[in-house]
């Protein structure tokens, strides 16, 4: 199984990046091989004025990750990850190595809602064709991230 960890660096000693959408890198850790198999440079999403979370979640989905370990996930990224059937383990800080170990040892669990760091939004999910590929079709457009908080 592949885990995507938002990270400030490219190796196991890096710190987990608290931001999902604007994370510097995503480290893809393959539990079957017990090593990092891919590093995604998220610079483009970092530079995006809007929707960094959507872009980041898309890349993570395309890398075939089944779980994301990060600090906070906004509602739009949540909608994409949810549609891709990816589990989210949020509120994680510290080193990538520890985050991965804790997750494998069952000390960190997936959350079931977006974090409170982004303004509410909605996605219109469109189910894809069935069968084949690592992606669940599912017309799951994430609902409103109705946490009531506003940016700034």
């Amino acid at each position: 199984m592949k885990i995507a960890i938002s990270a400030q660096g490219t190796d196991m000693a890096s710190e987990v990046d608290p931001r999902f959408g604007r994370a510097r890198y995503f480290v893809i850790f393959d539990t079957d091989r017990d090593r990092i198999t891919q590093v995604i440079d998220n610079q483009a999403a970092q530079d995006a004025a809007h929707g960094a979370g959507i872009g980041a979640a898309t890349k993570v989905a395309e890398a075939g990750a089944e779980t994301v370990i990060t600090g906070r996930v906004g509602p739009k990224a949540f909608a994409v990850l949810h549609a891709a059937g990816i589990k989210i383990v949020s509120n994680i800080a510290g080193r990538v190595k520890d985050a991965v170990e804790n997750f494998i040892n069952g000390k960190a669990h997936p959350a079931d809602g977006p974090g409170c760091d982004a303004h509410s939004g909605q996605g219109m999910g469109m189910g894809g064709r069935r069968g084949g590929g690592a992606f669940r079709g599912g017309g799951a457009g994430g609902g409103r991230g109705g946490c009531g908080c506003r940016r700034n």
Partner: protein
Amino acid sequence: MHFEVVVPEADEEAADAAEIDPMKVAIASGKGGTGKTSVAVALALSAQGSVEFLDCDVEEPNAHFFLKPEIRLCEDISLEVPVVIQERCNYCGKCRDMCRFNAITVFGETIMTFPDMCHSCGGCFLVCPQEALEVGRRLIGTVELGTTGRGIGFVQGRLRIGEAMAPPLIRAVKARSTDSRTVIIDCPPGTSCPAMVAVRDADYCLLVTEPTPFGLHDLKIMTGVLKRLKVSHGVVLNRAGLGDDTLEHWCLDKGIPIHLKIPFSRKIAEAYAKGIPMTEVDKDLRDAFTRLILEIGK
């Protein structure tokens, strides 16, 4: 009540209201609460000939409290956003790569749109090789049109609650302006996109500010932006006498005219609270605004 109008030469000719050219005056301020709307309303009420008031402060349109227009028409304003025709989409991702706003994304065999992120640029429709996108609509707000008791044409935009994209709505408000001799544009406060869209193509911009350090800070930003937009501008100093004269010195230094100083007055504040324009409670102030309109029309 004292106030001062800084009219360099009040020549006879300028007093002849019939001689001014049509003009669009934008009323802006670096932050909210400076009395921007009060000044805009006072100007509209003091101008001669056909007048039109555009309330472009679409997040909080409040000029209607003072002008009390009768609204005749209310239009919904929406943006064109893509809607996917599933059977045609082959998940090639061209739309996603095209979209600068991440309003559409594709991964595996899933395509998702985020209508509230869409800027309606039309790019995705153009690049889709499958003609798999059709036009849907996202309501961003309404535009209301009417007339006040004194015959002032009135247009206001009202952004849908939760909607973030004010500029297209502001453009819609401005597009509904007819060619009145004087068009008063009440701009959104601040120096970001919405304010710029409202100010753009005005003949003149009046910056309403207060003689405080914050007022000066915002004024510096605003004048910088207006210079770049090539919109000539001057200052209306509200609640004059409350702060110090640093701001006035700065204006003098930069050659930015201070057209009018409105002192802090209990009478004006009380009238404001009741929705009464300041020009209604102070005849001298009304004359001052009439002269101000003539002055900037030159």
